[in-house]
């Protein structure tokens, strides 16, 4: 600033008082406003500004803008507060007129006034501009901060979404993601007509975890995931881990179920190769269920169907795949509904007994009856045991149901004693009943309550029931025998007849299965082979086996008079089947007893029951 060609002012700038003015101004500014500079730096800045101011006062005419620029530069140096302006005006007013001899020179006084006014204006304008700039800056910063926070939120949401839609162990998509994708495919917006879902489950994986530990289990799951993810097929839309050892493959653009089955097959094949974990070979198998359908189907339905099919694959022996089938599913559902309705039905008394005649083959007369369970279902009508006994066996309801039927049968048989003394009733006993403690006690109570003599109650047990003679079964049978109740083997000849067990059991008789009493298919003849026995040879042998063991033999499934004659010829004691009568309500048995008595009054009292009253 001291390069200005201003001869007049050169001497005056160094007048006494100017230096004091600079010091006073710097002090005033420092007091008014903090600028992070040293005192020396501050003095240098103020000194330069003072020099320009002094020069301007001494220069005629004042160059336009000089005063304003001093004000602007004051703000630029950091002294932009109102206090800094106030301090500046005060110091200039107090010190400069005397230092520059303004009193002696009215033009200087005028110039100083004008400069002061310009300086204040320049200062205010610069401070205003500075405020506006800072406001812009902070707004921009806030805007950017918001944008960055939103971006960070998006990134974190994306990470959270990955966390929520992927399995952490295997990195595969999880159930959430699978369901979402299936739903998307099943929405009309996607041009795919049909989709398939293959649900896979490792067989007996719990055993792997139990025996080898969870760490090995986790390694296996990763390897399984890796193999499934490595399956390449343009139709594979997604491979997911649903939970624990359950995986799923989404197949898109299928034309038929076979397309999805092929992929499930490949998945099972890739898992069939043994796994190696820590140098140990771990063979695994997996089961699969496949459901395939049009996208119009609900995705959740496809998912459920594939899981149902997976259950079938497991139930049918594992290591295989099953395709969902509406008929099987409907049958399953019906069975389930039936099974679920049974306890209440038993409570309401919907279970009753039907009775099928058992005749003495020599005389053709009624010797006894077999009580057969019937369900008077309010919607489905009268159901035979074949429809529900397995369900009852499965749920365990068979125990209560068996007790209920036994009581009904004994009460009915007891009534019949009045019109046909010695008529016995034969009741089926299930494996479950036999394996429970206390069966003999229950039977004893029922006999007590109903008044039926023990020897007129015959309990039928299957070969299966006595194949495993555990303590409870043997004890039950022995206790029942001690009661005087008769025990026969039902369906003899088709199960796993354990002759060793038969030998040691307190049996009273055998019931030959209907398949033995029907004519066999023509035997295959081989040249030079021994002539196979005829049907009659078989029957005679079995009957004589029974008789040799002191057992009463009853043949089931006799449908014709010819069969009845043939069996009578073999020496078989009793017969049962449609030829002698179908299972009927007790009234009809009563009616036929009465009719038989009327037809043949002489033999009324001598009618022999098939079972001698005092046998063995």
């Amino acid at each position, binding site marked *: 600033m001291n390069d200005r060609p201003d001869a007049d002012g050169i001497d005056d700038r160094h007048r006494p008082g100017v230096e004091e003015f600079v010091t006073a101004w710097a002090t005033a500014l420092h007091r008014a*406003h*903090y600028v992070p500079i*040293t*005192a020396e730096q501050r003095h240098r800045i103020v000194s330069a500004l003072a020099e320009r101011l002094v020069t301007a006062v001494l220069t005629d005419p004042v160059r336009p803008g000089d005063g304003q620029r001093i004000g602007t530069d004051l703000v630029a140096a950091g002294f932009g507060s109102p206090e800094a302006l106030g301090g500046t005006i005060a110091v200039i007013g107090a010190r400069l007129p005397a230092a520059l001899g303004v009193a002696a020179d009215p033009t200087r006084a005028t110039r100083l006034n004008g400069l002061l006014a310009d300086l204040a204006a320049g200062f205010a304008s610069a401070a205003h501009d500075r405020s506006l700039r*800072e406001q812009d800056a*902070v707004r921009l910063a*806030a805007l*950017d*901060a918001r944008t960055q926070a939103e971006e960070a939120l998006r990134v*974190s949401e994306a990470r959270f979404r990955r966390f929520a839609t992927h399995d952490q162990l295997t990195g595969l998509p999880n159930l959430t993601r699978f369901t979402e994708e299936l739903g998307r495919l099943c929405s009309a917006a996607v041009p795919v007509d049909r989709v398939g879902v293959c649900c896979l489950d490792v067989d007996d994986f719990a055993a792997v975890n139990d025996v080898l530990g969870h760490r090995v289990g986790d390694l296996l799951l990763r390897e399984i995931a890796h193999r499934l993810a490595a399956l390449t097929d343009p139709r594979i839309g997604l491979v997911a881990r649903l939970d624990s050892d359950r995986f799923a493959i989404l197949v898109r653009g299928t034309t038929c179920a076979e397309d999805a089955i092929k992929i499930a097959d490949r998945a099972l094949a890739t898992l069939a190769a043994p796994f190696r974990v820590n140098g140990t070979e771990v063979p695994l198998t997996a089961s699969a269920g496949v459901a395939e359908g049009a996208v119009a189907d609900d995705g959740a339905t496809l998912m459920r169907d594939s899981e149902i099919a997976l259950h079938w694959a497991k139930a049918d022996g594992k290591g295989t795949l099953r395709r969902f089938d509406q008929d099987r599913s409907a049958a399953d559902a019906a069975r389930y509904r039936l099974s679920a309705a049974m306890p209440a039905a038993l409570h309401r008394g919907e279970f009753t007994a039907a009775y099928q005649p058992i005749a003495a083959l020599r005389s053709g007369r009624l010797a006894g009856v077999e009580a057969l369970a019937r369900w008077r279902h309010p919607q489905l009508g009268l159901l035979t045991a074949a429809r529900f006994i397995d369900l009852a066996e499965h749920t365990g309801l068979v125990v209560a149901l068996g007790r209920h039927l036994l009581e009904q049968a004994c009460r009915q048989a007891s009534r019949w004693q009045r019109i046909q003394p010695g008529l016995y009733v034969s009741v089926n006993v299930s494996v479950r009943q036999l394996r429970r403690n206390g069966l003999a006690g229950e039977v004893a109570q029922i006999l007590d309550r109903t008044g039926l003599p023990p020897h007129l109650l015959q309990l039928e047990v299957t070969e299966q029931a006595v194949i495993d003679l555990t303590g409870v079964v043997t004890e039950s049978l022995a206790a029942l025998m001690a009661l005087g109740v008769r025990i026969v083997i039902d369906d003899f000849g088709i199960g796993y007849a354990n002759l060793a067990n038969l030998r040691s059991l307190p049996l009273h008789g055998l019931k030959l299965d209907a398949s033995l009493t029907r004519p066999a298919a023509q035997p295959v003849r081989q040249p030079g082979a021994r002539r196979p026995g005829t049907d009659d040879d078989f029957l005679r042998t079995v009957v004589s086996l029974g008789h040799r063991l002191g057992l009463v033999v009853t043949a089931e499934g006799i449908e014709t008079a010819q069969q009845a004659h043939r069996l009578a010829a073999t020496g078989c004691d009793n017969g049962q089947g449609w030829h002698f009568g179908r299972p009927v309500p007790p009234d009809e048995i009563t009616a036929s007893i009465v009719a038989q008595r009327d037809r043949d009054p002489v033999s009324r009292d001598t009618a022999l029951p098939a079972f001698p009253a005092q046998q063995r």
Partner: protein
Amino acid sequence: MERPEWAPADVDLSRPSVARAYDYWLGGSHNFEVDREFARQAMAAVPDLRLVARANREFLHRAVRFMLDQGVRQFLDIGSGIPTVGNVHEIAQQVDPDARVVYVDIDPVAVTHSTHILAGQPNAVALLEDLRHPEAILEHPETRRLLDLDRPVGLLLVSVVHAVPDHDDPYGLIKRLWTALAPGSCVAISHVTTDSRPDEMGEGTRLSGRTNTPVTARTRAQVEDLFAGLDLVEPGVVWSPLWRPESPAEVGDHPERMSFYVGVGRRR
């Protein structure tokens, strides 16, 4: 309390920010009306709050110059706030153009503004981090890029430690920070107290509860404890104007009214 690590910082412009209020007290315009409203309320409680803020700011600069004199050429300024004229890197780079500065603040607006100001400035950076996560600050890639932790660092904790309540263990946090630094590193701390003006500063402290960083005032003994393990340089923990003033005239008649204890410690 703890945000999940992926949760972004909150930008809530409806709450006053201490960083922007501080800018207002120093005469700046980097603030919004909500900040100024809070700043004026605080000034109603403590009429000379602008001087208090200024004295604290002056201490920062004297501490930085002191550290520069000690040969420190890299700085970690935690709680750097809104950048105004005379930022640490400006002062440091006057002495050494290669001086490095890492600014850290919890206020996202302060950090983005700093980032704008530092655009084209290769040796200074601003990070959005929290004093309560020392390792996150120290392990941050930008910190690692700019600072050589095998050489002395100037750790600046100016007007920030009082934002850490006792249950976040400020003593432990500070120690975790400086133990990661090389011997010869310096730690500057300035801290609000109600020792000298219990009523006025107590009210100011209470008002800070409205902001995102409420203040916990501490006693001189507590502030001295913040330096535990470090060698306090002369004159120890003192009122802010009394720490190595440029001249006796700068101190003023009542340094205790500035209500900040300050000090600088050196790592052995």
